[in-house]
């Protein structure tokens, strides 16, 4: 791998194998190691038994496995599960407790950083800084679709992250899903299964990519009601991707990147997210962290192992 960019993987990528008990945590670690991944992210709510309060024995076992498979625990991925309760959102006190708790276990497990979510709020985020410094763990927020750098709350976050007081402890994790401009294979398959005609869908996507509006597309063809819904869905989801140029602005406070994708073709390319341009931007920025494979096209009929292998090949090629 060229330069200081390192190849990581969120074990979330292995969801279909993990939730069906085909691969346990150790098997996941072993396989990603063998594929050349060096750093991992664990989604604690997914793979940590007794979460949110894992046992010390589990932590010790986990650290032993990381050593065995020569893997670095880059990121402990946490949520702001604001909507846990049926009657109300979490309170500030509760969010702090959950976040502190994740940071404690992340530290015990040896993680460099905890990924959290925008719902933490700028106010609470700032309040967590002393604890980050106290225990020496970064607390980073993922910028995930449908968010992008122009969302108001993100302008606030970026200001906080760029404040020298938080340097080394705060940061943003851009999820490349924010750059996705057109439907991926999983969505396309779903539209087709739902009854959209193949030739209609090809036309819709071509017109979407050429910049036509919802009304223009609808008026330019003879579509079924379901197909009109597909058009609306595509325009709703893929009309406002972040601009590639935005990445450069984020990278100064980016310690980690989510290489999100839903499907890579046999040629190891993604036709829905401009990976080539994004990787150029990363190389030019001097970014030194991990870019993590985050495969999310989970279906029974797709082999995640093949997909994450293609990702490693794609990134490797681009970094050369």
């Amino acid at each position, binding site marked *: 791998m060229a330069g200081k960019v390192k190849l990581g993987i969120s074990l979330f990528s292995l969801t279909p194998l993990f*939730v*069906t008990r085909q691969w346990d945590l150790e098997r996941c670690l072993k396989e990603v190691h063998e594929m050349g991944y060096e750093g991992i992210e664990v989604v604690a709510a*997914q793979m940590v038994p*007794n979460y949110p309060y894992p046992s010390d024995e589990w932590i010790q076992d986990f650290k032993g496995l990381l050593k065995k498979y020569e893997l670095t625990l880059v990121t402990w991925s946490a*949520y702001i599960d604001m*909507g*846990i309760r*049926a009657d109300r959102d979490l309170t500030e006190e509760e969010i702090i407790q959950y976040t502190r708790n994740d940071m404690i276990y992340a530290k015990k497990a040896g993680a460099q950083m905890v990924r959290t979510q925008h*719902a933490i709020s700028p106010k609470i985020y700032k309040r967590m800084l002393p604890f980050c410094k106290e225990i020496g763990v970064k607390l980073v927020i993922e910028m995930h679709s*449908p968010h992008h750098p122009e969302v108001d709350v993100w302008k606030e976050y970026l200001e906080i992250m760029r404040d020298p007081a938080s340097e080394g402890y705060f940061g943003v994790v851009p999820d490349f899903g924010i750059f996705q401009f057109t439907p991926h294979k999983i969505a396309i398959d779903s539209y087709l299964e739902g009854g959209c005609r193949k030739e209609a869908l090809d036309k819709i996507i071509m017109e979407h990519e050429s910049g036509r509006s919802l009304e223009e597309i609808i008026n330019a063809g003879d579509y079924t009601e379901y197909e009109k819904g597909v058009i609306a869905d595509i325009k709703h989801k893929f009309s406002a991707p972040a601009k590639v140029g935005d990445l450069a602005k984020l990278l100064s406070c980016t310690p980690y990147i989510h290489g999100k994708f839903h499907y890579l073709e046999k040629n190891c390319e993604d036709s829905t997210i401009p990976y080539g341009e994004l990787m150029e931007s990363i190389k030019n920025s001097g970014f030194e962290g991990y870019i993590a494979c985050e495969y999310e096209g989970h279906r029974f009929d797709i082999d995640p192992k093949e997909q994450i292998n293609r990702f490693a090949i794609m990134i490797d090629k681009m970094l050369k």
Partner: protein
Amino acid sequence: MAFELFNRILVSDEDITNITVEGIEIGYEFKLQYPSYRGTFLSCIEKLEIRIDNQLIETPRIGFYINGKEVLINELAELFREYWFITDFAVLRIYGEGLEIGTKHKVEVLLRHRIPYTGYFGNYMVEDAACTKVLNVI
């Protein structure tokens, strides 16, 4: 469908077994898995409906057993500190008559659940997971 994977894991393929106490049958049980990529708190379950051979089972007959405790369906929405780990099975216990060993039964489960971190611009996503399997009684 995007959630096809998760729908399919909702009802475990394992067999139905009768619940016995000192040899006396007091009902039957089968296993559920949370239909997602990650675990959740029970309070995110907004609805859980069970149909056996097309018959809706009344909630007082159902015990939802997880983490060493058995709760009622009507309590799920309030159990905001009870975590359902993604590879743990919940045991769905239906009290009453047992089922005849060797017979097969249609098990239909509908689970409506809130995704607690999805309030990006307002409301949380609420998903319906549904799974129907024909299971053996052993």
